[in-house]
């Protein structure tokens, strides 16, 4: 055999190995990105569910405490912000904002005993608490998927493929510090 043929064959083999590994990495990245997107859809589902529960809850509370307009307006604002959010960071801070507004709405039940005893109010509170638990669970799963994605695209040699396909680090679902400020209590 000629020397040049051996060189050619080895180059071909190396190329083949390279191409298959690049294809493999590429497919892995696509899969990971899909799983992040899928997880995000689940989080959004639950956020939507939470937003859907609010009008009912507000109406129930209004039946007993109609003049607490400030609280209702705050809840409506926070809900609108949540529905308007379109990326994980925005949604997380809007969700945290809704936490504090809803906290004040639910606290009204302390001053209105009839409201506290209303069975539909209790049921709605259960639905709300269940939705919050679901958000927490889906958020955890989403953040895990993001973590895997972020770690994978930074590792060598996957980072080269990721760079080539334009994969970027994704943001976690977590509230910005400003959204977690303690609500002011006025007496």
């Amino acid at each position: 055999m000629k020397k040049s043929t051996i060189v050619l064959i080895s180059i071909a083999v190396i190329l083949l190995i390279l191409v298959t590994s690049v294809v493999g990495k590429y497919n892995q990245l696509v899969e990971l990105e899909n799983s992040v997107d899928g997880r995000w859809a689940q989080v959004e589902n639950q956020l939507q569910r939470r937003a859907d529960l609010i009008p009912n809850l507000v109406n129930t509370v209004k039946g007993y405490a109609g003049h607490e307009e400030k609280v209702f307006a705050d809840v409506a604002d926070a809900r609108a912000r949540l529905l308007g959010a379109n990326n994980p960071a925005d949604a997380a801070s809007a969700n945290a904002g809704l936490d504090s507004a809803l906290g004040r709405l639910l606290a009204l039940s302390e001053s209105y005993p009839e409201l506290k005893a209303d069975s539909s109010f209790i049921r709605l509170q259960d639905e709300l608490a269940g939705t919050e638990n679901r958000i927490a669970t889906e958020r955890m799963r989403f953040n895990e998927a993001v973590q895997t994605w972020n770690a994978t695209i930074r590792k060598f040699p996957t980072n080269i493929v990721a760079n080539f396909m334009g994969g970027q680090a994704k943001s976690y679902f977590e509230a910005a510090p400003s959204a977690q400020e303690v609500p002011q209590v006025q007496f």
Partner: protein
Amino acid sequence: MNKRRFMISALFFILFLITSTYAQAALPKPQGFVNDFALVMDGKSKAQVMLIAEKLQKEQGIELAIVTVPQTSPLDPKTYATQLFNEWGIGGPEDSGILILLSTDGAIEVETGYGIEGVLPDGLVGAVIDQEGLPHFRNKQYGQGLVNMASSYANILAGEEFEIKKDNSEGSGWLASFAIFLLIVIFLRRGRRFPPGGGYGGRGGGRTVIIPGPRMGPRPGGSSRGGFGGFGGGRSGGGGAGRRF
């Protein structure tokens, strides 16, 4: 000097490893539909719950797991329930599973699988806890409370209506007495024509009668279930409701 510091940090590292593996291993293994790890259920209620769970699985393919534990720490009860549910995989391929978790340090959590959420919304889950579970748990009648809850959920899943009492909270006693007063007034005015039984209209004073669990059909005496085969791999997303008592 430096060596000592190294030793101390190594010690802490080992301690950390031990505690983290301990936390990982905190979830018990399933023994069957009924898992009385806290040893608070009497034999009769265990058998009753077992019957309910078997019927539910046979007729609707829904897996019901009852678990009692003395405590859930270091996890909070809800997180414990969600992890246990997904670790055990309660519910079949349609994610149709329910987990009733009782922690005898004062927590009850019901977790519903993805496939159950629609038929058994969280509000209803909570109402059953309030009406069927809590009154018994507060008197330490854990077995009876769990039987009542399990049979209520089974009835709801079988398509029966669960009647939610209008006031199921403290501090509303006057409302109930007022409602009863009103009922008596109406009754007196209407004279004999008032229909017996009242139906759905009765506000507050109405007592909900729950027919205790389904007891028809053959008793599974000496059934040949050779050991527990495990649950069907269902998942939950954190739905359900819980109470502290």
